[in-house]
């Protein structure tokens, strides 16, 4: 399959949006990625177009033939429309970097785009494999709730299958060789998407960020590197990949650090609930009020309001909205999703109006 079939559902079956799993009141999703490269082939940014075509073909064949899932979607990104690319970024299936159109290094700006692609397992969208991003292969597994162990097991199996047919670049001293030396070794990044409105409201978020940085963990926003913490969502991930095994990183994040952050966030929320802080309740009900009445809503505002609403749902203040609905709305109100759901291209003003309409319709719908 090439290109995103219009019939594909973008509404319900995505695994990481289910709002279930361990600690799902705080942990939205867990993600594990591995960086891998083909031996004897320059890294994507360094090779010629011919090199990239060759690595794309080789990896595509290996991925499609590895029996990873009963249904696998392959998208040639260099041929995909801007809207399709944006859709995949919003769903966390490809990076922003991978979505951007760029001519081959040294080629004229009118030259054809760099050959690159992505494979996605359907219908759960749990596994995605980017080809010719910064590295030849970027494998990722994303799941709902705190599930780093499950993500690791799944990606390890996918990696082992690919490794049996692809000659990976590996050295006994440096491990898996990557374009950027900050990924060399395990090529592993484990990250957890956390919803931390409690820690933001009681002011402890800065302390958590500092502590995480001291432990050499990265703290990023909703859309990864360089993005802001939209709507109190923070991604915490490991940075060290050389000299520490996958098990050690997993143990540190899943057993020691993340449960602590979850505990702090829950304590903050409990204290709001028992003290019934008017300011917090006011913020939640105002958010609900705006979301169910406004006529124009921007992406950023929607994200912030839905974050407050999510807190209201978790605290039991908002009873007629399900957490999974809030999670879905965070995605459906993003620009590309909005246009996809409504089936037409829209400019920014039209989107603000359509977004408000969608929010009202979904939140006021009676089951």
């Amino acid at each position: 399959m090439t290109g995103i079939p219009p019939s594909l559902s973008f509404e319900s079956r995505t695994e990481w949006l289910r709002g279930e799993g361990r600690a799902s009141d705080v942990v939205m999703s867990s993600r594990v990625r591995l960086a891998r490269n083909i031996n004897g082939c320059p890294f994507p940014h360094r090779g010629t177009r011919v090199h990239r075509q060759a690595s794309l073909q080789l990896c595509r064949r290996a991925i499609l033939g590895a029996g990873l899932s009963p249904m696998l979607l392959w998208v040639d990104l260099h041929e995909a429309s801007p809207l399709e690319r944006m859709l995949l970024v919003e769903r966390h299936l490809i990076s922003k970097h991978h979505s951007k159109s760029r001519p081959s290094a040294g080629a004229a700006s009118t030259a054809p785009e760099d050959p690159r692609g992505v494979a996605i397992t359907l219908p759960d969208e749990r596994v995605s494999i980017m080809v010719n991003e910064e590295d030849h292969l970027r494998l990722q597994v994303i799941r709902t709730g705190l599930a780093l162990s499950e993500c690791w097991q799944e990606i390890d199996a996918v990696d082992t299958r690919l490794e049996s047919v692809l000659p990976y670049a590996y050295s006994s001293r440096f491990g898996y060789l990557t374009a950027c030396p900050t990924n060399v070794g395990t090529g592993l990044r484990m990250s957890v998407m956390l919803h931390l409105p409690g820690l933001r409201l009681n002011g402890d978020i800065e302390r958590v960020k500092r502590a995480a940085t001291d432990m050499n963990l990265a703290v990023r926003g909703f859309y990864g590197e360089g993005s802001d913490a939209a709507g109190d969502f923070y991604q915490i991930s490991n940075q060290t990949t050389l000299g520490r095994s996958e098990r050690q990183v997993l143990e540190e994040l899943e057993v020691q650090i993340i449960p602590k952050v979850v505990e702090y966030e829950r304590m903050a929320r409990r204290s709001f609930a028992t003290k019934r802080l008017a300011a917090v309740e006011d913020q939640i009900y105002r958010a609900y009020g705006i979301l169910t009445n406004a006529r124009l809503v921007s992406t950023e505002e929607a994200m912030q309001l839905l974050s407050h609403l999510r807190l209201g749902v978790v605290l039991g203040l908002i009873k007629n909205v399900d957490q999974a609905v809030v999670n879905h709305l965070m995605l459906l109100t993003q620009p590309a999703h909005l246009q996809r759901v409504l089936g037409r291209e829209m400019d920014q003003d039209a989107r603000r109006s359509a977004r408000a309409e969608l929010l009202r319709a979904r939140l006021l719908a009676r089951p």
Partner: protein
Amino acid sequence: MKCDRCDNEATVQEITIRHGVRVETHLCEQCARQAGLGPTPTAPPPLHEILQKYIQATGMGHATVVAAKTRANCPSCKLTWEEFRQADRLGCPDCYTAFEAQLGPLLERAHEGGIKHCGKTPARACAAPARPERASPQNEALERMARVTSLRKQLEQAVASEQYERAAAIRDQIRQLSAGDGPTPSV
């Protein structure tokens, strides 16, 4: 600035303190040499020049050795160390061998003191030597590459400890193993 002794441009500056008074002398290269200051033509050339001459004279022109010693470029993708420092991206898997010496301290800083891989190993990297009956062309190529990497390390050590006969023998082994390998992708 002009030389204190002739009309040439001064390139050497000497500052001395005599009886608590600062005295500055500006000389051109020629006058400085006469005065016994600055670089003299009889001074021995730096060690790396001797080594490079030796490598060229004995035909040990293997790019990896030169790269490691003079920070030239990666033999496979031609990336220079300076290019890497500008972009923070290496050019190909072979860059890790070509720049191994320079990368070591950098990786140690970036990975909280981590210097050696610890964790998952590709099955073929550990299984291939133990089970030669399953050797495929790809496995053989990988084994050969692993052997070349190890030999290159030994070669660097031999050159560093001035064991030139040993270095020449290792170089011949590397040549034999890498015959036919080029920078083209193995795809």
